[in-house]
């Protein structure tokens, strides 16, 4: 009886992963889906701890270590996940993804250490699992550093050639090890080092604005690395979980690229930062921009009929979502219709703005998706842009030499007035100048989004 419980638990685990992912892709069931998958995972973990045995029937030992690790990981993971601010969510996902990659890497290292002369099939699985896990780990850490600003975008000259050499080195070393031509630990750890270097160089030149796509891609890498673990231990739940994430993650990556109207190849090879230099400087007739005072803004807003707020990363950084909601409520009280125009990739991740505004209790009905918002700008009096830049850049429509050319944007120019809140005239994350700021309809309102919004609320109350 006992020996069917483990496989049964694994089967249930696999099913919860599938059902969970399915539920996660629908707004109504998403939260439950996450819990379903978590329950299945818990079952699979505890079934493994207590019921796993190898072919000779030996059960697992070292329980203090296992539980110690589980407790430490649970405490740290919960704390980190609970404490992290909404703005830092993307980084956190990247970091957790890196942990998974590192875990896969360590498993391979230990398995090799136990049995350096395993048969070819085993060695292939160990080495591939390690390579993918390591690339994912190193890449995720770089992505994490980029998102929280610790690592700056840096174009590496000849990056493609270097990456090609690293690839070749990986293949040669792996073949040497697996065929037994030169099967020494030095070669094994050499593979590890090259894979780590490759992970770093793979992510390094990619612009910060493209990080969500990269994280999604690395996410599916880790899935594949986990699946190799499934091969290693003949473990069906690791295999289904890993491969599911691997394939779903790849599809998700492509969907994200599509939302930005860019191909994956374009993201990975034609790095954003590189082209920006050539594309951005070519903007021709850049006149002067004009500023608007807080008081004028308040008056303009209060006597409008319809106001559209376009949130961007600046709003998230300033943690201004609550102030923004307050402004919106105040305007509504004055009889102004207020809506939010949400660009699918505003912020650092798709859905970033939705989550942020939801945190401040902004009603769901007020958030307009891009297509709907675009059809309403024509009847809008004032568009208030809060820390968004590239998603309203007309260059995406007009300037074929621009790196963001072809990306769908919020066409705010159709509105009567455009007020842009930014901290300075510095270009946005993609490093591209924005002609919108120099249009006659546009006024600039400089300052930190939170401060400006709070002051605006004050001005409105005093009106």
């Amino acid at each position: 009886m006992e020996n069917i419980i483990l496989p049964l638990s694994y089967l249930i685990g696999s099913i919860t992963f599938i059902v969970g992912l399915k539920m996660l892709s629908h707004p109504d069931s998403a939260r439950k889906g996450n819990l379903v998958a978590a329950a299945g995972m818990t079952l699979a973990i505890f079934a493994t701890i207590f019921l796993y045995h190898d072919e000779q029937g030996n059960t697992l030992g070292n329980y203090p270590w296992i539980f110690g690790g589980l407790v430490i990981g649970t405490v740290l993971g919960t704390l980190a996940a609970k404490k992290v601010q909404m703005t830092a969510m993307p980084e956190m996902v990247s970091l957790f993804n890196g942990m998974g990659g590192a875990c896969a890497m360590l498993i391979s290292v230990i398995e090799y250490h136990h049995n350096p002369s395993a048969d070819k099939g085993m060695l292939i699985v160990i080495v591939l699992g390690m390579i993918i896990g390591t690339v994912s780990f190193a890449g995720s850490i770089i992505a994490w550093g980029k998102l929280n600003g610790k690592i700056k975008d840096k174009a590496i000259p000849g990056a493609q050639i270097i990456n090609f050499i690293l690839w070749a080195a990986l293949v040669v070393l792996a073949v040497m090890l697996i065929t037994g031509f030169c099967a020494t630990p030095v070669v094994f750890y050499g593979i590890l080092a090259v894979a780590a270097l490759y992970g770093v160089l793979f992510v390094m030149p990619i612009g910060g604005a493209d990080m969500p796509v990269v994280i999604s891609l690395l996410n599916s890498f880790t899935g594949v690395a986990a699946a190799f673990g499934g091969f290693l231990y003949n473990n069906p739940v690791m295999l289904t979980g890993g491969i599911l994430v691997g394939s779903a993650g790849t599809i998700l990556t492509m969907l994200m690229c599509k939302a930005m109207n860019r191909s994956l190849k374009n993201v990975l090879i034609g790095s954003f930062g590189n082209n920006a230099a050539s594309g951005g400087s070519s903007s021709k007739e850049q006149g002067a921009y004009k500023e608007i005072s807080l008081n004028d803004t308040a008056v303009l807003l209060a006597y409008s009929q319809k106001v559209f707020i376009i949130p961007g990363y600046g709003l998230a950084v300033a943690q201004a979502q609550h102030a923004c909601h307050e402004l919106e409520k105040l305007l509504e009280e004055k009889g102004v219709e207020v809506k939010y125009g949400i660009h699918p990739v505003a912020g650092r991740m798709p859905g970033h703005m939705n989550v942020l505004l939801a945190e401040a209790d902004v009603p769901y009905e007020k958030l307009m998706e891009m297509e709907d918002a675009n059809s309403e700008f024509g009847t809008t009096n004032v568009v208030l842009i809060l820390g968004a830049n590239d998603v309203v850049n007309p260059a995406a429509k007009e300037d074929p030499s621009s790196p963001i050319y072809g990306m769908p944007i919020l066409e705010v120019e159709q509105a009567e007035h455009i007020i842009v809140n930014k901290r300075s005239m510095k270009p946005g994350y993609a490093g591209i100048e924005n002609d919108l700021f120099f249009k006659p309809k546009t006024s600039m309102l400089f300052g930190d989004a939170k401060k400006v919004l709070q002051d605006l609320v004050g001005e409105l109350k005093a009106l």
Partner: protein
Amino acid sequence: MDFLQNLFSDPATYRLLTIVILSIFLGIEVIGRVPSVLHTPLMSGANAIHGVVIIGAIIVMGQAPSDDYLALTLGFLAVILGTLNVVGGFVVTDRMLEMFSKKKKK
């Protein structure tokens, strides 16, 4: 060649291979048409699911000989990292989705 031979003649390996193929299609199918609002939570949820690699870490830890300190240390580290991936992943996803459900009720 032995390896390929094994892949198809050994029933256990062949079964795993079947799971892989089916899972690939399932993964594609399951994601289907997801609204862009859910891209981030979905990615985060998938991130937690690949934390299933923790099972490998538990097995490798549980099998480590008690005098092999390298394996014990690395295994311990692997269990911690794997748990971080699982627990952190699910909690972060829940936090993101909590906000979606809250606004729905209003």
